[in-house]
């Protein structure tokens, strides 16, 4: 795709704002629409766009498949880990109120929601990228007639 000059330049300009917008959606989810699911999809779309214009091998230099797979599991582990962390403070599973002072539950709730949404972001973004890799990197099996 060496000749798509305009596409390549526009993509280079767009990647950073897309990633930034994903982070905005992530961390503004407490105040407006959005959260880990939406942010994860937007975050992965930057990688998909890069792959569409520059090729799969280029984007796999930035995000190797092994790293993407590890991150997909890390997000779920982070979410589940936050649940286990509340056991340490004598709380129920995924009860964030107990993290700090039990008389001010909102401090713990803020931290818990932040971490949990981060886990969702990591898993959703990684799984979307991984599924895209699986489709884009798959060489179709030859037809019976091609043999």
């Amino acid at each position: 795709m060496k000749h798509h000059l305009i596409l390549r330049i526009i993509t280079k300009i767009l990647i950073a704002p897309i990633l930034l917008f994903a982070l905005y959606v992530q961390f503004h989810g407490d105040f407006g629409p959005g959260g880990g699911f939406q942010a994860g999809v937007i975050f992965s779309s930057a990688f998909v766009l890069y792959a569409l214009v520059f090729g799969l091998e280029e984007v796999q230099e930035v995000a190797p498949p092994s790293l993407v797979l590890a991150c997909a599991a890390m997000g779920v582990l982070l979410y589940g880990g936050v649940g286990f962390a509340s056991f340490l403070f004598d709380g129920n599973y995924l009860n964030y109120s107990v993290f700090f002072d039990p008389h001010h539950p909102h401090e713990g709730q803020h931290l818990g929601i932040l971490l949990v949404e981060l886990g969702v972001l990591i898993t959703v973004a990684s799984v979307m990228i991984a599924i895209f890799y699986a489709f884009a990197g798959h060489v179709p099996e030859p037809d019976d007639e091609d043999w």
Partner: protein
Amino acid sequence: MTEESILGTVVVDIILFGLLAITAVEIARLRSLFGVVALSGVFSLLSAGLFVTLDAVDVAFTEAAVGAGVSTVLMLGALSLTTQRERIPSHTALLPFFVVVVTGSVLIYGTLDVPAFGDPKAPVHTHVAPEYIEGSAEVIDVPNVVTSVLASYRGFDTLGETVVIFTAGVAVIAMLGSGLRRRKNGQQK
């Protein structure tokens, strides 16, 4: 809500639903799979518009990002692994049409019992919703109630959803491979 704004909402609803119906019929009619994928993106975007008119901006956001964005790209990726045109079926469309009509009638019959949109006495608004709305402001201190319900009150559900997404990724990788084995240079360029 003033009368003009109600009228405006109704007009927007009619336009969106009309376009949605046209898109659905075209998807059923088209044999070119490329066109079907493009139209399914249009369908998702129109649904996202409908969710906005229902004040469900979080759902609309997800629908636009997932349905119109990423899944269109994934469908195009799947399309590159198969043929461009759908085969003309050998049987008539009478049985599928019958199934669709019956299912649609059952669904419409089901909506007859549903409380009116925005009815404050609807069961969904009288059970735990008031507690969530109050608690979101006082206990959790997060202005967006959707986020506090999703991440805190319904944290178990969201954990389940995250695991579902993870499982979906694992399933696709199990079938198609993770792309870990790089394609040999020159073979596919």
